């Protein structure tokens, strides 16, 4: 559905020296600096797939999405989406995609929400019967009917996002682009939005590309992730593989009532020194161990050695993994 080959995007940025002298200098002889927003990224996305872009601020995620949607021209490389060149065939191409930019709206600001949908109906040439059916479905998943008579500027951010998502999906796009669809939303709204996205993906087999900073979006929605940092693709694969590759250990947290034995020593004897780390802070204990050791086994041993009041097992945290990748990325600078 989507093929990107060696996409590059460079911007020219004016650099100005500080102070009055710098300002005067910039007036006559502006200095430029080339910013490599995206450098040499290639990937493919299949039909019906949900692909999530993650990466720190300024990594190039939004630039990538803007190139995929035909807004920005790549400096080099080839992009094909749904058989179109997004830049050269913009007008035909955008008929087949839906776009939501979390920080902007495509709704008609001063007019009641219903007007936006009538406008979109004309622009995308949606037939009346199809329109009614589609509005029924969108209302079912996004509950937009109660908002229809309100001017868009009076909607809350959560309501606006629901409406924006519905607006992007009215014409049954083949590909839906979501740039930070859950930004600034509360937990309940986020949850509803995610459910709606998942539902649309399932019902219409819509290919979805999303960028986010909220890893829950990724965990709950994405089939595959791409991690971008400093304009480069640093990881591509499933979330599961990411955990496998980078998250080598698991963690047990527990509250003890009694401890008598040298746990670290005994566990190390039993499982070998494979990354076993035992720590105790008053009655709160943590045990970190290599993921190759079955949790049940280590748990059994642990329960024999100490008497425990409460216990929880944690997969290695995606957030921690990603943080580590971002940080190591920075070090290369």
């Amino acid at each position, binding site marked *: 559905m989507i093929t990107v080959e060696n996409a590059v995007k460079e911007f020219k940025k004016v650099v100005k020296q500080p102070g009055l002298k710098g300002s005067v200098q910039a007036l006559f002889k502006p200095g430029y600096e080339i910013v490599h927003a995206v450098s040499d990224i290639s990937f493919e996305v299949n039909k019906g797939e949900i692909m999530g872009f993650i990466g720190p601020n300024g990594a190039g995620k939004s630039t990538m999405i803007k190139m995929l949607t035909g807004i920005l021209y790549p400096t080099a490389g080839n992009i094909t989406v749904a058989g179109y060149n997004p830049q050269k065939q913009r007008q035909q191409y955008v008929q087949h995609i839906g776009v939501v930019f979390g920080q*902007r709206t495509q709704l008609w600001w001063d007019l009641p929400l219903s007007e936006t949908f009538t406008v979109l109906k004309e622009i995308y040439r949606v037939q009346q019967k199809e329109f009614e059916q589609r509005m029924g479905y969108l209302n079912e998943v996004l509950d937009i009917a109660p908002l229809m008579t309100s001017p868009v500027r009076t909607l809350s951010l959560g309501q606006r996002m629901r409406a924006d998502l519905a607006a992007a999906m009215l014409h049954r796009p083949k590909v839906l682009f979501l740039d930070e669809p859950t930004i600034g939303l509360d937990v309940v709204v986020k949850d509803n939005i995610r459910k709606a996205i998942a539902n649309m993906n399932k019902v219409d087999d819509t290919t979805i590309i999303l960028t986010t900073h909220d890893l829950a979006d990724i965990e709950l929605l994405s089939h595959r992730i791409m991690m971008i940092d400093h304009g480069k693709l640093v990881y591509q694969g499933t979330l599961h593989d990411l955990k496998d590759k980078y998250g080598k250990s698991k963690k047990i947290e527990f509250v003890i009532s009694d401890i008598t034995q040298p746990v670290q020593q005994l566990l190390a004897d039993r499982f070998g020194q494979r990354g076993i780390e035992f720590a105790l802070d008053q009655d709160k204990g943590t045990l970190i161990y290599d993921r190759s050791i079955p949790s049940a086994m280590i748990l059994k041993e642990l329960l024999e050695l100490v008497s425990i009041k409460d216990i929880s097992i944690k997969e290695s945290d995606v957030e921690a993994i990603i943080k580590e990748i971002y940080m190591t990325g920075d070090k290369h600078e």
Partner: protein
Amino acid sequence: MNRIKAYIPFSKGGFLTAIAYRTHILGFLVGELLFSFIMYYLWKTVFANTGGTLLGFTFSDMVVFIFLSNATRFLIHSEATYTVAEEIVEGSISMRLIKPVRLDLSLMFTDLGSTILTFLLIFIPMLIGIEIYRFVEFGVWMISPIRILLFLFSASLSFLVNFYFDLCFGFMAFFLKNLWGFSILKQSMVNFLSGSMIPLDFLPKIFADPIKLMPFASISYTPVMIFMGKYSGMTVFNAMALQIFWVIMLYLLSALIFSIAKRYLSVQGG
């Protein structure tokens, strides 16, 4: 290839937005009227000291000229420069580019929406006012349906010339990022060179003739002269042909600028 129907909503939107900001329009109207009256008294003084006619203009000609020029300027007003520049500066041009519509037509039809409102609210009353003035002045009705029709046709061409000129300017924002100072320059240039401030025929012939060939005269001078009967016969035809020429030229120029400019787009802020 492009169905006009898809653009009707833009006009509707422009119309409704204009209504939503009716106080804005009202303020504009009062301002323009005041301006027209200032011009009126200014010229009154001038004519009082020349007596009779000035370069073929009688004082009543001048009154018609002042009010009709201003009404025409109002009628063909385009927001294209402002809209494009603002959308580029704040990045919302993205939202326009993701729609399966042409950029120029979507902007033009938005303008048309508010033009319809200005036509009904401002132009028609102004025209009635002018006809009443002429009736009072000359004692006979001077209404000429043919002149009015020719005027409307020429004014439509003016709208297109002005729109594509504005659009070319707006596209400069792709390169300049901020267009504020530049657009003030443009507006003063248009106001002066289009002959809506001073009749172009008042300028020395050596300036007036080249200016009349420039697109600016096609913006508001031509329709006003046609209405006033200053142009007749072949002159009307030639002036309109020149307008059509400029519509085509500016349309091509805007398309050319856009095809280059879109590569330079760097969406500012997110």
